[in-house]
């Protein structure tokens, strides 16, 4: 299957997503922001539609518009003091913009491909841009690792330690926007938030420290995305749906293995 260029591009972008999404997702899940993925994936859809309507590059349009929407969420969250409401407002803006632009017609893009994910739409240019965004995001994460960790764990303590939490939250939104814009072409709008949350949920079941949880989030994410990609090629279905199903299956397997391990330990004690 990898004799085709589109599959090689899809594989490359999938591996990039598999590394980037859990690195951002672990902080989103721990800050109880999982649903932000859903709102920003719709922002990404609106960004692609907007960019195509003015003859721009889909990935660049998705990144810029998603980053702006991420900043808007942060601005609204700090002003109306209600994260759920901030997400609802931005979701309405993004869905409204996307539906309006797409329903006008004339865009050379498959809406189904954007909603469910598609391997055929990933070009070599997309792959290189995704690689650049991923490298920049991972480098930022490495440089800001301790601050990211502490803002997620205890925002007030981070502030007392000298972290400029507000500015930091905006940087984090840009990183989230980068991950979502990269992932949307392969996994699609509808299941993107599961790519941010499910591998992390599986890794959290291991009950280990932060670094181990982060490493296992990436390992589970690689398994989910590669299995989703290969199965979708062989079954001739959209990769997004299968990736989400594999993610749920992996999470259930990890929970079962954890419970079996607990039962065995209890049995040994008796």
């Amino acid at each position, binding site marked *: 299957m990898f004799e085709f260029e589109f599959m090689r591009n899809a594989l490359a972008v999938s591996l990039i997503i598999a590394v980037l999404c859990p690195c951002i997702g672990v902080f989103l899940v721990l800050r109880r922001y999982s649903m932000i993925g859903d709102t920003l994936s719709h922002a990404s859809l609106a960004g692609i539609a907007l960019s195509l309507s003015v003859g721009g590059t889909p990935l660049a349009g998705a990144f810029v518009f998603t980053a702006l929407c991420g900043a808007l969420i942060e601005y609204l969250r700090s002003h109306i003091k209600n994260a759920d409401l901030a997400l609802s407002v931005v979701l309405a803006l993004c869905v409204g913009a996307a539906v309006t632009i797409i329903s006008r017609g004339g865009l050379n893009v498959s809406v189904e491909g954007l909603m469910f994910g598609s391997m055929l739409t990933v070009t070599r240019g997309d792959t290189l841009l995704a690689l650049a965004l991923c490298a920049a995001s991972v480098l930022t994460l490495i440089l800001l690792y301790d601050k990211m*960790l*502490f803002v*997620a*764990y205890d925002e007030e*303590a981070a502030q007392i*330690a000298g972290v400029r939490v507000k500015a930091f939250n905006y940087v984090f939104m840009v990183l989230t926007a980068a991950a979502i814009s990269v992932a949307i072409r392969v996994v699609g709008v509808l299941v993107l938030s599961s790519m941010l949350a499910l591998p992390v949920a599986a890794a*959290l079941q291991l*009950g280990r420290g*932060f*670094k181990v949880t982060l490493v296992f989030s990436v390992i589970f994410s690689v398994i989910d995305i590669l299995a989703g990609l290969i199965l979708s090629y062989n079954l001739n279905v959209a990769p997004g749906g299968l990736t989400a199903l594999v993610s749920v299956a992996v999470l259930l397997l990890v929970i079962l293995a954890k419970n079996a391990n607990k039962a065995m330990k209890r049995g040994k004690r008796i």
Partner: protein
Amino acid sequence: MIVANQLTFSYTDSPPYALQNLDLHIAAGEYVSVVGDNGSGKSTLMRLILGLLKPTRGTVGTSAKRIGYVPQRSDYARHDFPLTVGEMLRSYARIIGADAKRETADALALTGMQAHERSLVGGLSGGESQKTRVARALIGSPELLIFDEPSTGIDRASQDEIYGLLRQINRERGITIISVEHNLTAAMANSTLIYHLHGGHGHICTPEQYAKEFLRV
């Protein structure tokens, strides 16, 4: 170490005021317990000293270059967070620019938490959690330590250990301590000064004066 002049604060920038025209001077090396009824402004005063809130009128400032803070235990219900005690302390040390390895080892030794370096913070008992927070506050050699109800939610034996540790830090290292207290017995036994807040106004005195004036002993 801490100076407040006509310090006034309202959460709405208008009356009612949580704190009104407070004048306060705390010298280095003191152990001050801040006491008063619920809603008297104790935690608000701590947040103003920490710079987390800005005064509505007046000023408050500290000469301490580094402040360690141990918040109320209820603020820390993060049992689901995958973080070991060692990871938390080293991360905090790196953020404030301290030597992560050495400072973490020292803080764990002082609080008797060496055996828990690899334990998850969410799996610790109440007393162990509090000692971990004290260990974090000690990183970076602070000149001022601020506690918000250090004995809330922990058993008697752990309370004794925590107060023993606070006295030791205060006397042997000369670190100034300000502690919001509901535990009057602990406040009387440990502090060099008591700051009594009532109706947004404050009054500072020794534990002996406090016993005479407010407890009628």
